């Protein structure tokens, strides 16, 4: 990471242009194929994710039971050294691929997000680190129209 910090330097004007570019990334453009995939597996294929290994070093903090499927908060942390990105797949959503978060120049591999979840589903996280992929999942139950609690 330190190396990146030294080697990647932007001028002020260049920085404005760079705002729309993704550095160090396989995702040069918004990956329409992956986002339109109807299964998590197809989404991963479209992103070039192959052979993700189960890992205990990915921490997914999400509610076991979400009362409101429209706003399900989750905290995802990767403790795998050299993590460059975290991708999220909500397996039973109509379009499971929810997004990829990339870290550069000193960003800690952690992200908090709030997602819509249609029905009870595993939330699968894929971490890219050093050219390899690691994965973990957490089951989130969604109660629809319930009284909560």
């Amino acid at each position, binding site marked *: 990471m330190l190396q990146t910090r030294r080697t990647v330097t932007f001028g002020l004007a260049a920085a404005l242009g760079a*705002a729309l570019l993704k550095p160090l990334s396989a995702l040069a453009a918004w990956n329409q194929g992956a986002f339109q995939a109807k299964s998590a597996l197809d989404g991963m294929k479209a992103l070039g994710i192959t052979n993700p290994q189960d890992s205990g070093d990915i921490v997914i903090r999400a509610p076991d039971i979400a009362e409101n499927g429209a706003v399900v908060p989750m905290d995802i942390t990767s403790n795998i050294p050299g993590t460059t990105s975290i991708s999220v797949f909500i397996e039973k959503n109509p379009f499971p691929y929810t997004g990829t978060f990339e870290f550069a120049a000193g960003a800690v591999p952690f992200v908090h997000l709030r997602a819509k979840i249609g029905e009870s589903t595993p939330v699968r996280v894929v971490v890219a680190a050093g050219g390899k992929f690691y994965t973990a999942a957490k089951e989130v139950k969604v109660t629809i129209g319930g009284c909560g609690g």
Partner: protein
Amino acid sequence: MADPMKIRATVQGDVADVRVLMAHPMETGQRKQAGKAVPLHFIQSITAQLNGKTVFSADISQAISRNPVFAFKVKGAKAGDKITVTWKDNKGETRTDETTVRAGS
């Protein structure tokens, strides 16, 4: 023009905790209003910079909740540093806001 983002960045030790709230409907294209589907309208990409250098970026889908909230952490940030966040949606609309990193308690 979309409403401004709310960005808060506080530094604890040498790690800045950045939270961003964006004002956006994030329509999924699945919701119906008066029998007609509301068209897709959602943020596709987000970039955050610390003093002009990209530290965090994201490509996201319509599955992110309405008025998206994101938090991330940046090592090596100091009070007074500038955090700039830009988003762009599927209709080409874009918005950039900036804040200054504050010292945490």
